[in-house]
Each structure stands twice: as structure tokens, then as C-alpha cells.
């Protein structure tokens, strides 16, 4: 997996490509830790090019969400493929992590959190 990064209106958009699985989870968590070190607290994970995610991958998203929330930031995940969405649904992680249908909707979701002042 590789992760491309771009900035959109003060929001960091991470674009991982490949599979979010046990062999690659440290990459995502490490990237979010570095962003927080650099004071970037609002992150959108565009998952449109994640073909497969296992429980370790889900765990890395939960960990990233905790890190950003603890820094008064926010995480949202956008454009999930059906198999990935099913993992969120079955584990009920979709009730705790903000999901959006598209990257545009995800950006709006994060902007609302920014206006509210923090990620909660």
C-alpha cells in the first residue's frame, strides 16, 4: 500500500492505494502520528482505492481516529468500496467513525467539525 497526501482547505486528504491489511497498517498510523506532530489535526481518508481491508486495517483507522480526537481534531473516511463498508457495518464501527459517500461530502463533514471547534 502507498499513501498519497494532498491539502484541501486546511484538511489533509490521505489517498491510500492498495489493501489496508496487517502487513501495511503501521504505514497509516505512522502517517497520522507525523501529521499530528506537525499540527495537522483534520484528516480525510479517501478509501476509494482501498480494494480490501481486514480487521487489522480497521484497527488502524480506529487508532488514527483516537489519536486525532485526542488532539481535538477529526477523522472521516470517504468513498468506501462495498467490501470495506461491510467491515465497518458488521463491526458497527460505522456508528463511531464518520463515513461519507464521496470525498466532497467527507470534506464538508470535516469542515463542520472544524467550525464546531474540535473533532467531537
Amino acid at each position, binding site marked *: 500500500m502507498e499513501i498519497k497526501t494532498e491539502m484541501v482547505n486546511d484538511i489533509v486528504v490521505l489517498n491510500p492505494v492498495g*489493501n489496508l*491489511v*496487517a*502487513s501495511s497498517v503501521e504505514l497509516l498510523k505512522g502517517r497520522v502520528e507525523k501529521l499530528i506532530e506537525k499540527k495537522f489535526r483534520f484528516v480525510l481518508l479517501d478509501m476509494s482505492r482501498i480494494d*480490501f481491508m*481486514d*480487521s*487489522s486495517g*480497521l*484497527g*488502524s483507522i*480506529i*487508532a488514527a481516529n*483516537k489519536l486525532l480526537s485526542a488532539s481535538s481534531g477529526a477523522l472521516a473516511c470517504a468513498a468506501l468500496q462495498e*467490501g470495506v463498508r*461491510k*467491515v465497518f457495518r*458488521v*463491526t*458497527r*464501527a460505522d456508528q*463511531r*467513525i464518520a463515513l461519507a459517500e464521496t470525498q466532497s461530502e467527507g470534506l464538508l463533514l470535516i469542515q463542520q467539525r472544524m467550525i464546531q471547534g474540535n473533532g467531537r
Partner: protein
Amino acid sequence: MAASLRVNIVFAADFRSVDQARGTLLVLCRGAFPLQQEAVSDFCMAANEAMNNAVEHSGCSLLEVELHADDQSMTFRMSSDGERFDPTGSAAMPEPDELGELPEGGYGLALIQEFVDGMAYQYRDGKNVVTLVKNINKGV
């Protein structure tokens, strides 16, 4: 599918090899059941979690995986050395803690049980043998 499919794969017990094995299973199952993509996806997810668990928890050095598919079902059988590890016990989906935070781990067994129709475990000749079965709904 016209005929049954039977494939054996033996590989080193590490996560990268699990990735390759999962990819192989996915290609084979998609080819065998092109109209049952959700069942194939569920089956490969469960197989992936079983392989990850073996790598992470049993301390095994080698994994041997057998895939068998026929008109009725897909069967995944995995043999691994290492510590005895029975994944068939009750595995509830993890719940949020008192602060509403989800745990970062503990989903693997619950996902396996969610995504397949049958699961069995034996400890045989010093090896963990896990069998997962996914039925094929021909009406789909």
C-alpha cells in the same frame, strides 16, 4: 462451476505471504463463482483473518492452505505448526468502552464467524487445523 477445484498452497508464516495467499484465493474463487462475488469476498475475508490469527497468535513457521470448491460450497482448510490455537470459541464483536471508544483489536474471530457458514478446529499431529466453509447460494 462445471468441475470441482482443489488447490494447495504452502508458505512462510508472515503477513506478506498471507497477502499473496489471499490474492490467490480471491482470483481462484472469483473465477469459480463469478456470479457470487459477495460470497467470495466474505469467504476470502474469513480466510484472511484465519491466516492472520495463525501468524499472530500461534507462532507458527509454515502455513499450509487447501482450497476446495464445488457446486455447493467453498472450503478453506489451514494447517499450521506452533502453539495450539482454537479459533472456534464464542467470539462476540467488541463493544465500545465506557468512554464510547472502540477497541483497536479483537475483531478477527468475530468477523470469521460472521462471514462463513461453518467453522471447525482440530489439533492433529502437532498442527492446528482450521476449516472454514462458505455455502454457495445458486439463486443469487
